[in-house]
């Protein structure tokens, strides 16, 4: 008791944190029991009737859910397959700039978009791609590439390319930081030796830069893979509209729709969706972390 009294200030400092996590992290975790209930707001989480796995059965039979699951994996995989290598190439290109101020300029501008919200990013690209007076359409029409303005954001086939492009615009510069940092750790003497031997710039990149950051690449790729069921809620919610909804609906946005549109009747199903996502996410996370650890220890040898 005396010890507790001696540590009264430490306890007082930690108490708000303890309560914070209790209320805003652990209480919602308990709330997942909703997915096993026929949730009734008036009865609340503690007194609603339990129905076992019924909600999950309903869930797997829902066309909306299956479509959202398909879209989530597709969008997420496209981002990984196309944008991940692009980020590495971008970092390699930045690394090849030898003029200090220019390099700093490119880097600084490249992560500017990362710091604005997707709401703003969406607003900007809606304007740039719009049919009346959008710069992109104006330019394409005046160059004769397009006959008439093309409604980019309301075209189903253009939607994924636009999602990939805007994602690259917003996040590529920032994601490249880690590769740039790891490139700067490579010993300069290796490049000098290669140059003396007459290696071209491409060969230097291929034989020195890339192997030098191989471990970082593997590690980042594995860590990214654990987010396969996170396709980008903010982006897809802000950039989608009724015409492309079929292709834009991902698990995150579907859950949000269950909360907003379905209201009380959708709570149990919506929570079940969230649990499904969290469960698969956790499995992916454990597997990927295991792989990452293996890759790490591999690199030490």
């Amino acid at each position, binding site marked *: 008791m005396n010890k507790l009294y001696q540590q009264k200030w430490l306890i007082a400092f*930690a108490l708000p944190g303890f309560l914070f996590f209790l209320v805003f992290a652990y209480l919602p975790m308990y709330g997942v029991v909703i997915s096993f209930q026929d949730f009734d707001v008036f009865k609340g989480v503690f007194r609603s009737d339990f129905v076992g796995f019924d909600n999950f059965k309903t869930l797997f039979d829902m066309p909306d859910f299956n479509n959202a699951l398909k879209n989530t994996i597709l969008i997420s995989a496209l981002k990984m397959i196309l944008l991940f290598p692009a980020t590495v190439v971008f970092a390699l290109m930045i690394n090849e700039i030898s003029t200090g101020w220019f390099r700093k300029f490119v880097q600084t501008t490249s992560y500017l978009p990362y710091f604005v919200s997707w709401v703003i990013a969406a607003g900007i690209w809606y*304007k740039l791609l719009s049919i009346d007076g959008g710069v992109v359409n104006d330019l394409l029409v005046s160059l004769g590439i397009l006959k008439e303005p093309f409604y980019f954001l309301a075209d189903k086939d253009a939607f994924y390319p636009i999602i990939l492009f805007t994602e690259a615009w917003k996040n590529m510069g920032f994601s490249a930081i880690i590769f740039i940092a790891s490139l700067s750790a490579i010993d300069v003497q290796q490049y000098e030796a290669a140059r003396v031997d007459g290696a071209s710039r491409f060969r230097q990149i291929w034989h020195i830069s890339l192997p030098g950051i191989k471990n970082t690449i593997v590690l980042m790729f594995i860590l990214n893979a654990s987010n396969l069921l996170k396709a980008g809620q903010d982006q897809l919610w802000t950039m989608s509209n009724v015409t492309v909804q079929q292709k834009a609906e991902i698990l995150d946005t579907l859950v949000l729709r*269950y909360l907003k549109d379905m209201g009380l009747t959708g709570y149990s199903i919506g929570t079940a969706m969230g649990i499904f996502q969290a469960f698969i996410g956790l499995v992916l996370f454990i597997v990927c972390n295991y792989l990452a650890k293996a890759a790490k220890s591999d690199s030490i040898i």
Partner: protein
Amino acid sequence: MEKKRKLDAFAAVNGLLMLLFAFVCIYPFYYVLIVSLNDPLDAQRGGLYLWVRSFSFENYKAIFKTSELLNAYQITLFRVVAGTVLHVVLTAMFAFALTKKHFVFRKFLTWWMLIPMYFSGGIIPTYVVMDMLGLVNNVMVYVLPHLLATFHILILRSYLNELPAALEESAVIDGASDFSLFWRIVLPLSTPVLATVALFIGVFHWNDWFSGFTYMTSEHLWTAQNVLLKIIQTNEASNIASISKMDSGFKATVTAESVKMAMLVITTVPVIVVYPFLQKYFVKGMMLGSVKG
């Protein structure tokens, strides 16, 4: 890197591509800025690419005439200030307690904060809890659920662990309690890292649209991001345009499109002003973030 390297074809092509990339990154912001500063009716003619053709503040005037938007900016400002100050103080307090090796609850509290990094209740259970607590349609929902973040506690904890122990020891010998140790010695010494955490959480609060969207059914509790989102997704901007039309005796002075642009600018500027200060901390933060797993 050696200084003298002749400008070869490789460097030229690479430089050009990088210049193009930088252009694609900034130009959209610049474009929105010039459209917002151009006379709205003139802007309708199109062909605005590189500079303002006919300068005018009409769009900004229209925004500040609309009380709805002013109100949203006030709420945003409130959450940025309150949310950031409280977040920083509580993070420092919690991290400080965790660095004291003799603290009895240290181990328990470390796990207590780490577990929520990997598990969470998800959107709907969280909503039900917020509803239970009376936080739905309550401005405190902008502040309370973001009082602490495990990641920021970790950053601060590793910083505090590296402070020289002798400083605190001598204060303890002089009879300082943990309370005065924290306020007089630890807090002033950690200003740089506290500033970093403050900038990150401040930018988060400014940019967050999810809380307003999820927990506020009453639109006059929305933040600027929420109003902006609605304006982008619907034709809300034409209402603002028509309000200002009524004001000036049925003569249209602004258009929906150009008001949108001005709103985008006002909502973007604070972040753009702040972010150069954040820049030098990115790499460290990214490194910390990627090894946490």
